[in-house]
């Protein structure tokens, strides 16, 4: 049962119009002597996201007013393309799942727009930045609202493009552009999986309509083999976008972009698109538990790997980047074991606390004039008290300390793993929870506690303007309390978010004893406590960067994965291209042409010997020819 609601098409339109206007303004005026005022750009930039946020609220209350099974609002703007059985509408679908995504994407998006007005001030490409940011938000909203996989793919590629543009924003530096290229290309590898998955899905069950609602109705016609193929291919797409093994490598490099971008795109919204996609296709994944368990295992192993890397990083943004990868791993573990609502809830809370942490890191970087090395910071809590307070809340949420939001969402995933019998995933999950607490507070202690390591920049540090701290405080409130929205029964709650999401998802909640749940909670809290204590012991009083040896050195160098990829993929690719264009192209593919010319030359030199150049020899040829002709004629006359 679905309702039409034309206004939902406007949600992505506002930021897109904003992007167009800002882009044109910047494009036409950026070579002028005097650029347009930042106030103008800033105001225009924030209008779109804020309007979208209000519309998202309208959508939410509209849905809330409907009975649960009817909570589907659709709007088909126009037929995008229709060929044979394939019929794709430029359509939008707002259901509980997308409305939840909408709410936090537009909310956090608006906050980060406001924050960026402060962070990006005095940047030469102020206007361009906001054009890209608006374009990103528009694409993300298309991704979330798309009524079918193809429309989702529009947003999917759109956010990838914006990610590329924003990572290589400071494009004079080659490294930044390379990081952008890496992000785009790795994402494209994922997109390849997405497109192929879509294609297989279409040929299997798409002829009755290629949007989620029709696909859901026809999902029972999917054969298990095709189901596995589709699920795994789509998951390749999710791996690309959400930075999972083996495609996670782009995300840490993506930190080359401005910090608000890292907060919005590479932490809160875009990178969670993969999780959203798996949840979207829960009607397929639910039928193919095998594919689901692959998703879960990839997710939890990514969580482990990224947590290991996170423990040794020295760049504050890279620590957060690896923690993002790690948390995304949790989310995939959640959706992989068919606990879709738990995964999505973690997406939701993670958006708050990770955006908070990134913006807080941004404030630190801003205060220290673009210093990102944590081993050059220290003792900043006196200079940046507001930032410190907010960051600690974010860190507590990330580490999963009760009662902050991260605890509830992460625990929901771990508990689902335990309840559904995935003990291995649960165990690794608890281990990673401890590691998360360790590396998060290692960062907090090194940056804010102890004594300053670089006295000069410490002296110049000051709290950023309120346009930057205000979003921090709002996000801190969110990071502290959003966990309450989905309190499990053991804490007297009713899993409100899970129930809200239920109409959109195909999942079953196993019934288990409260004892098991209690045991799970105790185990993860204990792990977090251990991690926290170690971090405090090592760094709480101020310490210098330890020498990394053995395994730590291996982890510090990120297991040399980038180098290995470079050696076995990138360089051979380039070398292969060079071999083709320098050797194969001129020597091998031309073989038929070479052969023809050779044949002509040979034939020519064979006939050449007849051409002696003496006139009498030609006369002889003539005579022989004429004689033969006469002979032939006389024969034929008789």
């Amino acid at each position, binding site marked *: 049962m679905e309702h039409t609601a034309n206004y939902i098409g406007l949600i992505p339109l506002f930021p897109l119009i904003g992007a167009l206007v800002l882009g044109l303004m910047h494009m036409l005026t950026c070579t002028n002597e005097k650029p347009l005022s930042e106030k103008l750009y800033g105001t225009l930039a924030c209008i779109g996201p804020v309007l979208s946020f209000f519309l998202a609220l309208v959508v939410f209350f509209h849905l809330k007013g409907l009975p649960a099974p009817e909570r589907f609002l659709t709007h088909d703007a126009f037929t995008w393309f229709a060929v044979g059985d394939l019929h794709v509408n430029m359509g939008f679908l707002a259901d509980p799942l997308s409305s939840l995504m909408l709410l936090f994407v537009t909310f956090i998006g608006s906050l980060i727009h406001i924050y960026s007005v402060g962070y990006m001030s005095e940047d030469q490409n102020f206007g361009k930045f906001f054009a890209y940011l608006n374009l990103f938000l528009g694409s993300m909203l298309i991704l979330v609202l798309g009524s079918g996989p193809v429309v989702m793919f529009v947003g999917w590629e759109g956010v990838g493009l914006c990610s590329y543009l924003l990572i290589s924003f400071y494009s004079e530096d080659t490294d930044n552009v390379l990081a952008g290229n890496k992000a785009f290309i790795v994402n494209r590898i994922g997109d390849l999986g997405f497109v192929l998955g879509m294609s297989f899905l279409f040929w299997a069950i798409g002829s009755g309509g290629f949007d989620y609602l029709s696909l859901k109705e026809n999902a029972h016609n999917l054969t298990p083999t095709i189901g596995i193929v589709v699920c795994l291919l789509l998951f390749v797409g999710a791996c690309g976008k959400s930075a999972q093994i083996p495609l996670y490598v782009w995300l840490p490099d993506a930190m080359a972009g401005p910090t608000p971008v890292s907060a919005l795109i590479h932490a809160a919204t875009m990178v969670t698109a993969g999780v959203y996609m798996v949840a979207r296709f829960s009607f397929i994944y639910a039928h193919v538990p095998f594919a689901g368990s692959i998703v879960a295992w990839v997710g939890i192993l990514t969580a482990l790997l990224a947590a290991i890397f996170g423990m040794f990083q020295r760049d504050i943004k890279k620590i957060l980047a690896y923690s993002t990868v790690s948390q995304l791993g949790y989310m995939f573990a959640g959706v992989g074991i068919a606990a879709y609502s738990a995964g999505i809830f973690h997406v939701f809370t993670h958006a708050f606390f990770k955006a908070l942490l990134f913006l807080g890191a941004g404030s630190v970087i801003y205060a220290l004039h673009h210093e990102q090395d944590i081993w050059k910071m220290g003792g900043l809590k006196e200079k940046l008290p507001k930032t410190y307070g907010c960051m600690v809340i974010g860190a507590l949420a990330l580490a999963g300390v009760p009662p902050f939001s991260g605890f509830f969402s992460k625990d929901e995933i771990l508990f689902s793993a335990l309840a559904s019998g995935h003990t291995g995933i649960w165990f690794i999950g608890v281990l990673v929870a401890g590691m998360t607490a360790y590396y998060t507070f290692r960062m907090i202690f090194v940056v804010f506690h102890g004594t300053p390591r670089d006295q000069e920049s410490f002296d110049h540090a000051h709290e950023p303007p309120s346009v930057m701290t205000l979003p921090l405080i709002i996000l801190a409130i969110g990071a502290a309390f959003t966990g309450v929205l989905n309190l499990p029964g053991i804490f007297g709650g009713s899993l409100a978010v899970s129930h809200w999401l239920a109409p959109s998802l195909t999942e079953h909640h196993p019934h288990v004893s409260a004892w098991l749940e209690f045991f799970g909670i105790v185990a993860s809290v204990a792990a977090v406590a251990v991690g926290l204590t170690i971090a405090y012991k090592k760094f709480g009083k101020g310490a210098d960067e330890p020498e990394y040896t053995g395994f730590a050195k291996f982890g510090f160098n990120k297991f040399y994965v980038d180098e290995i990829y470079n050696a076995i993929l990138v360089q051979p690719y380039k070398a292969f291209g060079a071999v083709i264009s320098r050797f194969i192209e001129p020597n091998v593919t031309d073989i038929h042409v070479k052969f023809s010319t050779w044949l002509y030359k040979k034939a020519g030199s064979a*006939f*050449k*010997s*007849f*051409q*002696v*150049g*003496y*006139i*009498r020899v030609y*006369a*002889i040829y003539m*005579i022989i020819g004429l004689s033969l002709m006469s002979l032939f004629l006389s024969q034929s006359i008789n």
Partner: protein
Amino acid sequence: MIQDYLTLSVILFCIGILGVISRRNVFTVFMSIELMLNAANLAFIAFSRLHESMDGHVLAMMVMAVAAAECALGLAVVILLHKHKGNLDTNVFSLLKG
């Protein structure tokens, strides 16, 4: 009767051919060609006589006219060749050698 004429014509023609093929002097070659033309003329006249029609005569006249014109052009070319290379050996003029 006619055979004798034709035999003579063939013999003359063959002598012409041999001259063209075997002689290296441009003039000799030239004369041999004339010989071949005249062999053809002889045949024409002989057939004309045999068929009692004047067509052969007409053709023979035609051939003579052509031969005269060819002579004029040909000798001019020969003079130029001589100017160019200083002798009239056909082996010297082998620019068409492949």
